[in-house]
């Protein structure tokens, strides 16, 4: 017998600021926060100043770069929002992660020197900081969350761009539903202002160039900076459920069959009532976004990428967090969240107001 699953805490920090109230206000329509200059021709939604030092001891801050700091910070917001500080020892954790920051200065020194192999290795040997390796490893976001917040249950980190965030949520939800976890923290972080990240996705030809445009009007991704975490608990014992995570499903396969998989995922979603809000976490990558919008039929109420920028791994969790906020604010009784990976993977979630 599966247990209903509740979202009981939300930690979100983005280019728009931090916390539920700031992000609830976005649902009235909000202008994106943008930096169109620093990485031109690629606009980005930049990371705002956040009081990391209030949440993360100085000693730990030094072991991280901003990607891990942002994730650790947002995870802390979720733990506090759920009032679960006292239960972190038994809290399970699933993070969807990319990699951490490279040393861009050193990279550019090497690029400029155009060294042979041996000299390149010498420059790396002399230039790399030992701690940077730990700041780069994807699983060290989870490791840092465990160290800073004392989260000591199970710990898994999923890789694989957008679909890793959706799969992390699906597995977290399934573990609560099947009574193999009583409390799970799930989420991730992404930072747009990173040249090595822009490099990879530029290679794919999936980035929007030029002045920012709303998602349906462009053919490419505009990255955002955000950390998004949620706590999940069995709805039957949750003291203050924010929303019920009624359904999460994912699929993946070859791109030719993507429209069919999206249609099947939507068909298998519990019935949508009139007034169901729809939030699309579409990336903006052309083919995947086109397939998602076609599967939805009608335009969604919101594109999370228009509010926050596209967030890759935490894109789907952030969309679900916005959905839970919409329910908590009484703006909807039911919210459908959809997501299609820029390269692979499809996901849907249905959230409902607690009884």
């Amino acid at each position, binding site marked *: 017998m599966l247990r209903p699953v509740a979202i009981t805490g939300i930690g979100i920090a983005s280019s728009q600021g931090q916390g539920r109230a700031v992000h609830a206000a976005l649902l009235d329509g909000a202008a994106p926060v943008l930096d169109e200059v620093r990485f031109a021709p690629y606009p980005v939604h930049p990371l705002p100043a956040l009081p990391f030092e209030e949440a993360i001891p100085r000693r730990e801050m030094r072991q991280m770069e901003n990607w891990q700091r942002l994730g650790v910070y947002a995870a802390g917001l979720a733990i506090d929002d759920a009032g679960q500080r006292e239960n972190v020892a038994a809290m399970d954790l699933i993070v969807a992660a990319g990699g951490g920051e490279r040393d861009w200065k050193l990279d550019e020194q090497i690029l400029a020197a155009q060294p042979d192999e041996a000299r390149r290795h010498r420059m790396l040997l002399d230039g790399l900081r030992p701690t940077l390796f730990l700041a780069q490893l*994807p699983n060290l976001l989870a490791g840092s969350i465990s160290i800073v917040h004392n989260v000591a249950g199970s710990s898994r980190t999923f890789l694989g761009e957008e679909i890793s965030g959706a799969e992390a949520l699906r597995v977290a939800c399934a573990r609560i539903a099947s009574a193999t976890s009583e409390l799970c923290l799930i989420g991730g972080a992404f930072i747009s202002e990173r040249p090595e990240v822009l490099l990879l996705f530029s*290679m794919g030809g999936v980035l929007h160039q030029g002045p920012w445009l709303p998602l349906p009007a462009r053919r490419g991704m505009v990255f955002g900076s955000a950390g998004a975490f949620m706590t999940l608990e069995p709805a039957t014992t949750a003291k203050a459920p924010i929303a019920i995570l009624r359904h999460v499903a994912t699929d993946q396969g070859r791109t030719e069959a993507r429209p069919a998989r999206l249609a099947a995922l939507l068909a298998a979603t519990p019935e949508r009532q009139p007034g169901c809000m729809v939030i699309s976490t579409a990336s903006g990558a052309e083919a995947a976004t086109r397939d998602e919008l076609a599967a939805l039929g009608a335009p969604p109420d919101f594109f999370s990428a228009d509010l926050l920028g596209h967030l890759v791994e935490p894109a789907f969790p952030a969309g679900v967090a916005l959905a839970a906020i919409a329910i908590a604010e009484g703006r909807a009784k039911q919210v459908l969240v959809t997501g299609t990976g820029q*390269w692979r993977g499809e996901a849907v979630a249905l959230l409902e107001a607690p009884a």
Partner: protein
Amino acid sequence: MNPRIAITGIGMVTALGFGAETNWAAMVAGRSGIRRITRFDTTGMRASIAGCVDLPGDEPGRPLSASARIEKLGTAAIGEAIAQAGLAPPPFDGPLCIGMPPVEVEWPQRGSFGATTYPGLIAAAAGQEGFYEEFLFGGAATRMAERFGTKGVPQIVTTACASGASAIQLALEAIRRGETRMAIAAGSEASLQPETMIRFGLLQALSTRNDDPEGASRPFTLSRDGFVMADGAGALILEDEAHARARGATILGYVLGAGEAADTFHRTRSAPDGSAIIRCMQRALDDAGLSPSEIGYVNAHGTSTPENDKMEALAVRALFGDAPPPPVGSTKSMIGHTLSAAGAIEAAICLLALRHQMLPPTINQADVDPDLGVDTIPVARPHAFRAALSNSFGFGGQNVAVIIGAA
């Protein structure tokens, strides 16, 4: 009541060779796969030795990328496991759960555009879709998933050196939840590229016994000085026992249970009292419904670092209480540390040991650390036992233990 999870196929690639039985024969003979790295220039690096699996296409100075190597090694191990399970050809009616390291654009690619700044590089590399698909985190596993026709989203997991064991745990849980009747649990590792070697070297984690490659990985000895990086991949086909029986598959053994515990102490060190790794082993025992006395062999994490081996021996002794612990071996002495693949490879080694009723050795035991107080199995020997415990402890404090049982 949880279904018993049968293992119906295994596959393995390490520096000792391709194929589970090839590896087993080499391990029982006490052979080392550690050698000097020839794939790239190691001048100035602290370590110049590794458990190298050199592939066709790897040319000195122009090796394949880590991502391409992960795909090739993983494909070999998974293909072997599927064939043994009698489940070829595709599609495979379950998910791929795979431990993998992070991958990224590497220097040969970065340097191939002649750009001298990041903006220049980003512009010059625009539209290089081959590189994009090669270096996406989801790339290699997705290509493996599509080759073998697995179902749904490939669960690509990284918990550093515990990743392969985490993959087993994810597969086990998916079967227990009834989401699938079978799953591939694998790990594939090929981080052996210059920048990663340099980074591990800067952490002072690697053995520098460069003049004695075969003697460099020496877990539990007084002279252990760090781990030896290694390429490798391991795969297991896990299956609901009833499903395996119904289709007439040969059951090779069982995954009896798994446990994990995050350590909140430090990024690269265990809590000094070993509490997190004890908790993880205890949880695996609880999950399997076994008492410590039913474990006949511990395939240790046994990295050959001063810190790990001391902590692990202490934790194993604590787990077994007043009773002497069973033999504790580290097959990393022969294949090196395959990082993200280690948990999958070593679970498969436990299965082979159970099937052969033989313990693989920990080689290079000339100066066993007497303070550790464990039987490290200096030479392979016959052993009657029904269950083995495989430990995997990751950087970042992610610890997983898996228990493998005899058929």
